Each structure stands twice: as structure tokens, then as C-alpha cells.
């Protein structure tokens, strides 16, 4: 879609302002029903005019003038950044996140900030303090999370593409639930400076769009070393326009443990099997591969991420940032009551778990063991990539589920992350693209995981599959559009 819009903008078939107005108009009609936006950018029109000047001067880049949405944990100088938390209500950062600055420098047009699970902790976007985001394919279902607002906005056509962040699956799972494409880049490929920290060893910013090709365009716009994030590196260069979109001769491993019907819904397994057959029909080989330690990835992920979250979120104390209760009697009360009233329940659970994992009496059994396990999982992947070019699996054990079916037992909800967390622990790139629909018409995601820095490869495999796959879009009339 970005390439088509680029052509229209460059040929002056449409102006950047007109393009923006089309998307704003759609958002005005649709978003009261979907609830993807937390903040609409009042300066978007001026940004579109600035983009137009660049287009008129013949200096447009691939994303100049393209309407983009931003997850609300990416710092923006001209819009609030709340992380969907009461703690940061009304907070306007004094600087742009590096990914935001990069897009701004290339004159992308920000339509607004998008809803998410509070501090990116969740898989439903239902932990947002502000609003409920609904799945455009079925309004009674969750959009996934934590980047649920980003995925829903792209799916409902309210933005061309969006940025999300993926700590344990927060780009890929909502992309799967909302029938769009989402990429978790290799750890270090994209700067996290200005992405409000959840778990620094795992957090990555990634694109969500309607195609792998568009994800590639957005990735190329945000990737690269950043002096403000010492984990970032210059990635091998790739030309998004030249994505090979071909799987012939490639070797794919179908992850056995993630095709187990006791773990994954039958309709999801069937859709991924059909995708595997497509790969085979198009000249690739697909063989089963076993990664037996993946069943331990969920506890390992939750221990590491929660431990880091308990440290990262200690800055929210009512003094340095954010919400503060009225008339605290003591400094101690100021801090503990700020966190009591400012954080939602899920955030408190993660902080408590993090403190537990880091306690001296439990450290060896939990945190240290989890980090050792993550290293073994990484080694298992490395061994698999000696044989395979990429691994395929479902993105989620199930399609989107109704709000009423969100499990009350947190461990049940955490177990649903089984398909996505291991790539995050291993720092590997993984893309989710639609590969089928359930009988109820809900999208099913196929996840393609690559070796480190193989982002362009997995995007090209996804692009090849998308070329043959008949992607559905939500019926916008039903959404009020």
C-alpha cells in the first residue's frame, strides 16, 4: 500500500493533506466504535503540508506524507505519552523517541497515539486505564495486545501503518488477531530510546502494516544504530523495494511443540498446516523441528520481564514522574500511594512478581535460572538455523477471543504467550502474517522466525505468502464507516 500511495503522492494524484484527511475522516467514523486512538494529533495537517513541500521539491522519501499511528509508549514532544496508564495521564515528554524522530525527519505524518495494555503489560489491550479497544473483525473480541490499538487502527484502515513495541509478542499477537502483518525486529536493530521501558533485555519497536512489504518500508525508516541506545547496532543493509518475495529452495522448520493440538486450537493448527503446504508447493521444503525447551519459555519470559519491569517502573514514584495523590502525610505515603492509585492491577502483579524473582532467597531458583534457560533456548534456535532458513509456527494458540472470555486466572493468560515469547528471549526477528480464518471469520496468524539479522529474509518469505493469500479486511460499514 505504501508504494501505491507513494506513487499517487509523487504524481500529484493526491496531496499529502488530502490523503491525511481521508484517513482522519475514516478514523472519525470508525474509531468511536473501535477505540484505537488515545490522542489524535492536532498538528497532523501542518505535518502533511510540510510533507507536501518536500514532495513538491522532489525530495520525498518512501514514507514522506504517509499517515502513521504510534503506540502510546513512544515519546512524542507534541502529543501526550501515557502508556495507557493513569500514572502518566497528561504527560508530554520533552523529547521524541528516536524512532519518532526518524519518521518525523522523513516527513511521515502522525495521525495520533494508539491504545495499548498499560505499560505494554498484557495481551488484550484491556489493561488500558483509558478505554477498551475492540477487534475490527468482531467487536465483541479483544484486538490482542499489548499493541492492540496499533493493530486495530491498521486493520480498520484508520492509518496506513503503525509502530508498536514487542517485548514478548506485543506486535505479533495483535497483528495476528486483527488480520494484519507485524514484525518484531532482531534485538538491537531498532533504537528503544524514548520507548518507555518495560523489560530492556527484550523490548523492541516494530512495524504493523497491511503487508510485509510495508513493514519492510517502515523498518528501513526506523532501523539503525543510535548513540542513545547502546544495544542498537547498524544492521545489514537491505532494500525494501527489492524484497525477493520468493521461497523456492528455502528450508522451513515447522515447530513441533507449537503444533500440538492440546496447546493450540485445531483451526489454528489447520491454517498453519495449509500455509506449510503452500510453502512446499512453491519450491520450499518444510520439515518438522523440535525445540523441546520452548515449553519452559513462558515462565522464563515472565520472570525476566517482570524482574526488569520492577526495576524500570521504580521511577514512577509520584516525584520524578506522573500521578501523585493529594495531601500525602509522609514521603513514604506519597510514593506507595502514587503507585497504588497510579498503576493498574496487571502492572502491580508484574512488579510484585519481579520483586519476588529478585529476592535473595529466590534469585537462583527463579531469575538466574530463567536467564540461563533463555541462553539454552537461544542455543537451540542457533542449532535449528544450521539446518533451516526460517521456522514457522502459529503466532498464537488461538484466534481473538471475546472480552468476556479473558481468563480471570493470570497464569492462564500468560500461557497464551507460548508461541511468541521464545523468539523474544532469543533476540530473534519474527513476523506474523495472516494465513487463514476461523469458522467465525477471525484471522489466524502464521509466525515466521528468522536467524538474527535475517529480518529482510523473513519479510520476503511473508511477502511471497501474502502474494497468494486472499487477505480479508473488516467490513467497515459494520464499524460505522
Amino acid at each position, binding site marked *: 500500500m505504501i508504494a501505491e500511495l507513494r506513487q499517487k503522492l509523487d504524481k500529484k494524484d493526491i496531496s499529502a493533506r488530502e490523503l491525511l484527511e481521508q484517513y482522519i475522516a475514516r478514523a472519525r467514523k470508525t474509531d468511536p466504535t473501535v477505540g484505537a486512538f488515545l490522542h489524535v494529533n492536532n498538528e497532523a495537517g501542518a505535518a502533511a503540508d510540510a510533507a507536501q513541500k518536500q514532495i513538491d521539491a522532489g525530495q520525498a522519501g518512501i514514507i514522506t506524507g504517509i499517515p502513521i499511528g504510534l503506540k502510546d509508549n513512544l515519546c512524542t514532544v507534541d502529543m501526550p505519552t501515557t502508556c495507557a496508564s493513569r500514572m502518566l495521564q497528561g504527560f508530554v515528554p520533552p523529547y521524541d523517541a528516536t524512532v519518532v524522530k526518524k519518521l518525523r525527519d522523513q516527513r511521515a505524518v502522525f495521525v495520533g497515539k494508539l491504545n495499548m495494555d498499560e505499560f505494554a503489560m498484557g495481551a488484550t489491550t484491556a489493561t488500558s486505564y483509558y478505554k477498551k479497544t475492540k477487534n475490527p473483525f468482531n467487536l465483541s473480541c479483544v484486538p490482542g495486545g499489548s499493541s492492540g490499538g496499533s493493530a486495530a487502527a491498521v486493520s480498520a484502515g484508520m492509518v496506513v501503518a503503525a509502530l508498536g513495541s514487542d517485548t514478548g509478542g506485543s506486535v505479533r499477537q495483535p497483528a495476528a488477531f486483527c488480520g494484519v502483518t507485524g514484525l518484531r525486529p532482531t534485538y538491537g536493530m531498532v533504537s528503544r530510546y524514548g520507548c518507555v521501558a518495560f523489560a530492556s*533485555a527484550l523490548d523492541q519497536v516494530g512495524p504493523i502494516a497491511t503487508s510485509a512489504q510495508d513493514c519492510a518500508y517502515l523498518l528501513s525508516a526506523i532501523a539503525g544504530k543510535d548513540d542513545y541506545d547502546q544495544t542498537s547496532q547498524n544492521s545489514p543493509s537491505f532494500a525494501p523495494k527489492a524484497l525477493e518475495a520468493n521461497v523456492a529452495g528455502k528450508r522451513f522448520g515447522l515447530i513441533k511443540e507449537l503444533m500440538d493440538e492440546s496447546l493450540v486450537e485445531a483451526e489454528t493448527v489447520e491454517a498453519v498446516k495449509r500455509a506449510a503446504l503452500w510453502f512446499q508447493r512453491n519450491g520450499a521444503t518444510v520439515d518438522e523441528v523440535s525445540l523441546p*525447551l520452548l515449553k*519452559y519459555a*513462558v*515462565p*522464563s519470559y*515472565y*520472570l*525476566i520481564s517482570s524482574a526488569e519491569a*520492577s526495576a524500570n517502573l*521504580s521511577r514512577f*514514584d509520584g*516525584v520524578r514522574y506522573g500521578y501523585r495523590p493529594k*495531601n500525602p502525610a509522609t*514521603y*513514604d*505515603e*506519597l*510514593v*506507595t*500511594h502514587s*503507585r*497504588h492509585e497510579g*498503576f493498574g492491577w496487571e502492572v*502491580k*502483579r508484574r*512488579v*510484585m*512478581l*519481579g*520483586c*519476588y*524473582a529478585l*529476592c*535473595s*532467597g529466590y*534469585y537462583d*531458583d*527463579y531469575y*538466574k*535460572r*530463567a*536467564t*540461563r*534457560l*533463555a*541462553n*539454552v533456548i*537461544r542455543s537451540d534456535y542457533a542449532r535449528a538455523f544450521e539446518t533451516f532458513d526460517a521456522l514457522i509456527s502459529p503466532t498464537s494458540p488461538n484466534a481473538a477471543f471475546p472480552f468476556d472470555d479473558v481468563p480471570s*486466572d*493470570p*497464569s492462564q493468560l*500468560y*500461557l497464551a504467550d507460548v508461541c511468541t515469547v521464545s523468539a523474544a*528471549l532469543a533476540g530473534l526477528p519474527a513476523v506474523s502474517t495472516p494465513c487463514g480464518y476461523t469458522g467465525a471469520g477471525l484471522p489466524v496468524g502464521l509466525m515466521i522466525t528468522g536467524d538474527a539479522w535475517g529480518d529482510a529474509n523473513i519479510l520476503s518469505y511473508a511477502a511471497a505468502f501474502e502474494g497468494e493469500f486472499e487477505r480479508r479486511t473488516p467490513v467497515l460499514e459494520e464499524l460505522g464507516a
Partner: protein
Amino acid sequence: MSQQIAAGLADLAKIHFTLEELEEMNRDMESIVKLMDYIKEVQLPPETPVKNASNIIYLRPDERRGNPTRPVEGEYFKIPRIIE
């Protein structure tokens, strides 16, 4: 997990809970820790390094550090200036 441990964790986390909330959190934590306990059964090679470089052998006691006494000015606490 006992409620005493949950209260200790809340203290370390610097989060106030009402008694009812602490009971609910305790129930949630019991379920979560049960899931986390699953990793104890995996046999890891003895020399597996930790993911990061900090193979810590000394851990400080699980005690919350006392808050410094803050001078008060009107309704505000005074904190050291960090930007000149």
C-alpha cells in the same frame, strides 16, 4: 505463598495495598508462582551461563532502603537540583 510474604513484596515494590487487595494479590501470586515453578524441573547443563554478564554472587538483604528525610517547602518536598 503466605500473606506475610505478599506484604513483604508489596513493601519492596513500594505499593500500598488495602487488606482486601493484598488478599487478592496473594491469590494471584500463588497461581503465577505455580506457573513459574515449572522451570525448576528443567535440567540445565551445569555450565550454562546467565543471559547477561552479571553473574551476581552477593545479593543485598531483602530490605527496603529507608527513604531519605526530605525537607518540605509548603506542600512540596525539596529534592536536589539536577539541572542547572
